């Protein structure tokens, strides 16, 4: 079938317009915040927040609240708690910390399953909570996503430079008066918001499709941080647009397409990096030794 007519057909459905609006909002926010998450090596924290979102969302449904509310309250709440946990600097306490977080992850998933079972007749929703869904995104949800993601992105822009400084060079940043510890908590809260927003498209378990994959690919494509941040956002948007289209024209879940497209882009980025580093005279080396 002609893809162009498919596209015009697609946008004639209100639910698809909502899916694209919500998806784009989420992609921009997650592409930017995910870039910092990858740079800061906090993917484990990101994954934990996503897993905490699952019981939050299922509890919200059980209590008769919106799924959106459940995600945002649990992810942002979880981020505040993780951010305020006392943090050691030695390797030993890091290991202990990761064990604590792993324990919490398992418990959160189990609690989510409990809420789903308590709420009879909701069992079909488990798949969409965990692996994503683009059906039934309401107008209200789009507005809420727009407001939260807009706020989070603006806040990220405001703290971007000190956050970058604190992320790559905490000791010097701290000596220059950058509030490293507060920034770390603030970033976790932003990450919680991004995870909660992304979960509503990708599901709790596949948030990395827009949170990690675009950033990981972008950081392989360029060493210029500003450029790589913009590329990360662009890749997240492309993943979302293509993924929603593929899910619309086929019968397979959207989470599968988002993740697969992200994976392919990541492989392409690795390939292009490999090619560049093995033709040093043509590109990188000349630029580097200018």
């Amino acid at each position, binding site marked *: 079938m002609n893809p162009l007519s498919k596209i015009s057909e697609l946008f004639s459905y209100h639910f698809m317009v909502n899916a694209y609006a919500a998806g784009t909002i989420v992609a921009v926010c997650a592409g930017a915040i995910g870039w910092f998450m990858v*740079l800061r090596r906090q993917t484990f924290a990101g994954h934990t927040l996503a897993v905490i979102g699952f019981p939050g969302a299922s509890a919200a449904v059980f209590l008769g609240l919106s799924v959106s509310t459940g995600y945002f309250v649990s992810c942002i709440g979880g981020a505040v708690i993780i951010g305020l946990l006392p943090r050691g600097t030695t390797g030993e306490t890091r290991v202990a910390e990761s064990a604590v977080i792993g324990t919490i992850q398992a418990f959160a998933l189990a609690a989510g399953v409990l809420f789903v079972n308590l709420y009879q007749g909701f069992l079909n929703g488990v798949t969409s909570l965990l692996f994503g869904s683009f059906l039934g995104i309401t107008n209200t949800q789009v507005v809420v996503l727009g407001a939260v993601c807009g706020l989070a992105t603006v806040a990220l*822009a*405001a*703290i*971007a*430079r*000190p956050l*970058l*400084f604190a992320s*790559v*060079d905490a*000791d*010097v*940043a*701290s*000596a*220059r*008066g*950058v509030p490293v510890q507060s920034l770390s908590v603030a970033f976790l809260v932003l990450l919680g918001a991004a995870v909660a927003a992304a979960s509503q498209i990708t599901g709790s378990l596949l948030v990395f499709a827009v949170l990690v994959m675009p950033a990981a690919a972008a*950081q*392989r494509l*360029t*060493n*210029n*941080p500003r450029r*790589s941040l913009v590329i990360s956002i662009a890749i997240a948007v492309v993943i979302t647009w293509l993924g929603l289209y593929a899910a619309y024209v086929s019968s397979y879940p959207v989470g599968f397409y988002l993740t697969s497209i992200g994976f392919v882009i990541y492989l392409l980025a690795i390939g292009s990096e490999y090619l560049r580093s093995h033709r040093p005279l043509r590109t990188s080396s000349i*630029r*580097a*030794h*200018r």
Partner: protein
Amino acid sequence: MHRPTAHHSNSAPIPIDIDPVIEFSDACVQLNGRTIWSDVSLTISTGEFAAILGPNGVGKSTLVNVALGTYDLHFGTAKVFGHKPGSHRQEIGYLPQRRSFDPSLRIRGIDIVTLGLNGHRWGVPIPRRLRHSGNSESESRVAEVIELVGATSYADRPIGQLSGGEQQRLLIAQSLVQRPRLLFLDEPLDSLDLPNQGSIAALIHHISTTEGVTVVMVAHDVNPILPYLDRVIYIGPGGALSGTPREVITTANLTRLFKTPIEVLTTSDGRLVVVGQPEAPAHHSDRHQHDGVHQDNHLPDPLVLREHRHH
């Protein structure tokens, strides 16, 4: 529009001729109830190149952290630029104890240096294209300081993929980029090979004289820097001593300080030799011309510390 010096501090501008730059009297630091050092009194004057020396684990970095305002004193007083430490952060450059960047970190050397200039500022900088003036003042300062440390050829490469010496040069550029008047370098020569130690030491001396910066360097091996030093602060198990190298480095002083027999000998050409200090491997330093920029502490003769195993 453009201010000649980088005063971004909220506090009132400090007079240029505050002297001494750093002053500790009867200072004592305790961490977790343990006394790190006590009874430390020292002064470092404007434009001096001072070294904090002593064995590992004796609290040399702690002294820098007190001067930076990161740690508080338990007793005594510490003043930097005549004020409480930490009140003039923008006047101070700091190079922490050797940190290496992860090889996978996708940030260029030039970005690390730029962060030293504006990384503490909030908000989004306006891209140059969108500005009317085409103002690239900060970019030219970054390029200038990278040139000063001789890192221009590799500043565009990811910092984690550079050698230790290359990273150290860029980190020195970062600590210098906002034109500090006081520079703290914590073990900048650690884990560098001997030729790099010598060239980085010479670079730091060059910077202290050409940029007029007061330099305080932490070191456990005095050899590469001794020819340039105006002042030494020795910290040992027996307390701390501060003064010119010739005042401090004597048999009686070091033996008392390290609680182990140490002899300081003078060679026939006037150089100092320390014997018996269980420290880093011995090597000769070339004699360097001391240009006598700092009139107050002009050394009569370049000093060389050599360390031998005591027979």
